[in-house]
């Protein structure tokens, strides 16, 4: 019996998600130094969350796994000194990809009938999102390598930027969801 397109998508996306989680865990554990046990623990929990998300069809497990693997990467990078890790933009894009793959696999488990022929295929959306994320993270990484002294005014401007970002996202989300 041939598998339905939804079942194929669910299995493929789920398998890629688990592979991505394993790869991100391995990257986090490289040169972890004294932080290795913490990184290992976080990566293991992330892998369990990924498998749970794929197996039980819980799309919200994607961001959780991404957050845990991001924390594992950060804990290991803190042991590597002050220099910016060149792999960070790739890890950042991979985290988004992991979250979306888990969500794709979970959303394909639906009992609903999926009408084929989406205007923009999901694979294309995911590829573009990952590619754009990589470019944006690389640009940001290049920006942060510019030597700028750290003082109170700069920290305050960073905090303002964070507050503005939060306010912008919350405001946009509320405005969009209010329209029915």
């Amino acid at each position, binding site marked *: 019996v041939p598998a*339905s*397109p939804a079942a194929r998508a669910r299995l493929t996306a789920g398998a890629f998600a688990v592979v991505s989680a394993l790869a991100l865990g391995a990257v986090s554990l490289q040169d972890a130094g004294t932080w290795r046990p913490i990184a290992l623990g976080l990566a293991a929990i992330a892998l369990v969350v990924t498998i749970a998300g794929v197996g039980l069809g819980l799309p919200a497990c994607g961001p959780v796994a991404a957050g845990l693997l991001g924390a594992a990467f950060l804990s290991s990078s803190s042991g590597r000194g002050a220099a910016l890790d060149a792999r960070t933009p790739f890890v950042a894009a991979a985290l988004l990809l992991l979250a979306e793959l888990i969500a794709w696999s979970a959303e394909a488990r639906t009992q609903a009938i999926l009408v084929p022929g989406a*205007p923009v295929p999901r694979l294309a959306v995911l590829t573009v999102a990952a590619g754009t994320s990589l470019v944006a993270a690389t640009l940001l990484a290049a920006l942060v390598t510019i030597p700028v002294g750290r003082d109170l005014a700069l920290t305050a401007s960073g905090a303002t930027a964070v507050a503005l970002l*939060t306010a912008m996202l919350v405001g*946009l*989300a509320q405005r969009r969801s209010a329209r*029915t």
Partner: protein
Amino acid sequence: VTTRWPTFRIAAYSSLAVLGAVAALVLGRPEPALLASPFALYLAVGLALADERTAALDPATAAVRPRQLRAVEGDVVELEIDAPPGSEVRLTVPTGLSPIGADPASPRVARFAARRWGAHRVGRMSVRTTDPLRLFINETPVDHRDTVRVHPSAATLRRAVAAAELQRRVGNHTSRARGDGVEFADVRPFTRGDRARSVNWRASARRNELWVNDRRPERNADVVLLLDTFGDDHAHRHASLERAVRALAAIAVAYHGQRDRLGLLTFGGQLRWVPLGLGERALFRVVDGLLDTEILLSSSWDEVVRVPIGALPTHALLLAVTALDNDTAVRTLIDLRGRGFDVAVVSLPLPTDALAHTDLGRRLVALQRDARRLQLERLGVAVSTAASLDDLPVAIEEVERCRRRLPRVRA
């Protein structure tokens, strides 16, 4: 009305973005902000696109169309879904249909097995669309209903109860009258107007004068099936209706095979009738009438039903299928018999265990049924009981046997 709500991405991705930015500030390192940047970018782009790309779905652009409007129990019913590409469709299907999985070759067709007879209304669904980055879900309910009529898989009856009076149309019953036909009746002396081919040459040679053969013509009958939907308890009424509809469907098919004219009268929830008709079309109308009975079952009527004279043709056989559990139904049958109609009854009672929990109660139910049965039999109505649908052919035979003993009636 389209309902819209955010997916988990809005809360989760914005949390990750803010957490990363705050961690970068607190730790004084750029990595957390870099790791969170794709989530912030995804949200920003997604929210910008969501405004323009997502529009409320026009319900007129989506529909569910059954590929066939009629099926028999056990058949596969296919529903063709017309919805925007890329959308998710959630169908609301009645309990009589159960999903058996989609055909991978035609994903726009949902397949269901017809599990139970009835007039199943399909067409209710909700169509979900999302924006390209799946930040919001828009759900639009669609309700263009069609009715799929699932006929009961009727048992095969070899014969049905014969009507006392036959009609003038050609049918399968051998009439008692004499005329053109196949069945030999008698010989009689030749009279003016007799056809030459009717002459019985052997009898004529023996008697030395012309004698002719008399034959019996084949005629059909008018039969009105009566469905009793009376009942005190809703659950019991459903259970007895289930059996009665199956029995009447089998009986209707048997009469159709005998080329009789068929009609239907349902009394109980509402008085409804299907006028007499002949052939396949009449059979479908009668079965459709049986299926519609369930839809109208919710209303109640506990007075004696006065069936209008026009609804019941004279000389028609009224064959009722009833559980004999309700006085109103029995009084209605008595009323019809009192008006001179030829009435026969097949009783399909529920087991007494279903109606009473104590031994005394069960005995009481059985006595009440016997009393009602006697009431009918005293008026010359043949009544037979089928404990289950498997006993239906025996019950039909029993009615037939009783009717031979009982005096004939005329409307």
